């Protein structure tokens, strides 16, 4: 009998205690961020809007290798390779359909020339689905993005006008296969 009474009392008491504790939340701090008025802190590595960067010379970094398009799990990147008079490869068009993009960052990981990068900008909502398809002129920015000093054509062995084989940074001249010296 006493156990039953005690259980009834303890049960009732615990209900009132939890109601009181919830009531005290009236005086707690709100954890909501009132978004359009207050800005949200976005960390520097946040994966938001995708950009195409340029190397320190101001040339396009993208060499149209298609690795980003291959690595994209939703297949939202499409591009076409072409070549300019200097021998540099670049995309003829570069198109990202942001209505499909899931901002996973795989393209950034796959990119061998650090051209494609994700930025901490997420405010790209639109009423028109078609205007979420970004072309190259929308993606290409003027700056170098996260890697200020990286310059693919100055580090790799590809020859372009003004830089023949063996003249890149830290690169030795090609071995003369007809020479007899070791």
């Amino acid at each position, binding site marked *: 009998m006493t156990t039953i009474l005690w259980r009834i009392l303890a049960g009732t008491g615990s209900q009132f205690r939890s*109601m009181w504790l*919830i009531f005290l*939340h009236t005086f707690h701090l709100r*954890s*909501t961020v009132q978004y359009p008025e207050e800005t949200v802190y976005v960390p520097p590595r946040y994966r938001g809007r995708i950009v195409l960067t340029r190397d320190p010379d101001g040339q396009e970094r993208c060499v149209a290798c298609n690795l980003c398009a291959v690595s994209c799990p939703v297949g939202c990147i499409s591009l076409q390779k072409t070549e300019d008079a200097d021998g540099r490869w670049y995309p003829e068009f570069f198109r990202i359909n942001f209505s499909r993009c899931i901002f996973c960052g795989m393209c950034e990981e796959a990119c061998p020339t650090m051209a494609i990068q994700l930025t901490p900008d997420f405010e790209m909502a639109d009423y028109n689905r078609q205007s979420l398809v970004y072309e190259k002129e929308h993606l290409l920015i003027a700056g170098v993005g996260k890697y200020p000093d990286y310059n693919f054509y100055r580090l790799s062995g590809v020859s372009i006008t003004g830089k023949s084989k063996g003249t890149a940074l830290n690169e030795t001249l090609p071995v003369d296969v007809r020479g007899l010296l070791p």
Partner: protein
Amino acid sequence: MNELSFSDILTIGIAMLKAVVILLATIVGAGLLTWLERRVLGIWQNRYGPNRVGPFGILQFGADMLKLFFKEDWTPPFADVLTFWLAPVIGMSALLIAIAIVPITPNWMIASLDIDILLFLAMGGLSVYAILFAGWSSNSKYALLGGLRSAAQTVSYEVFMGISLMGIVMLAGSFNMYTIVEAQKNGWYIIPQFFGFIVFLFGGIAVAHRSPFDLPEAEQELAAGFHTEYAGMKWAMFFVGEYVGVTLVSGLMTALFFGGWHEPALVGVDLWPEFIPVYPFIWFALKTFIFILLFILVRAALPRPRYDQIMDAGWKFLLPLSLINMLVTAAIILQQSSTGGV
């Protein structure tokens, strides 16, 4: 046969106008409660709730209403059409009819019957049919499970809720709400009828189908329970019915246990200074509002029990408690009247 004089017609007209005003105020209040509940729940969950539309977000209920009006009024092809349409009508109108007995001020009540409390119990019993009909006619398993739970819950709470009010009826000597409120002029019934109030609180929450007794709805388990298949205005009628129920039960708790329109005079001591006039409506509204907040606080704080646990508590704890309360009240009244020299 007497002829109706002009003053008779005027009296009838004013009474009808009052009824319409109370009805509209209840429905608009139910609409506002949807906003209030979301705001207050938000406050108790450390967020803001809807605060964008209008000042403090108060126009949110207008926006919601517009949305519901323009939604497609969809009846599923597998539903039993007549009962499917009847259910929301019962759900809203039964509790709205019961609003008629709530005494707001001495001059503002729709009906003052000799069977006020019985009418409330009857309408509370009738409103369950809305849920049963909705659950059955929807022809879907979630709705059916909701209706089933509602039936199980109904048989457990209606008995003790009726008995819990009998103590008050004995003390006031009447089923009439006006008489009951007037009898509390010098002391609210919460003191002599404390256990009656506890039992009625449980029963009232169950009548309004509010959390933690919202088993028929149980969003986490049953999609939306009995109104899973409803949309648009038919769904809105269920929703308004729920908030009318909250208002009704809060108003009844005020009138039955907390002295209705009387100023606080808990233990017979006059707390209210003489020179300040008493505004009956303000007292009634304030007390009712506090009970509505209590409903929301209960929803914010307490988890939902299983329905066998509810029946367990109803039959094994609340029913004996209400019976003991009734018998002890009767014994005390009997003893007092016999010593009073009858």
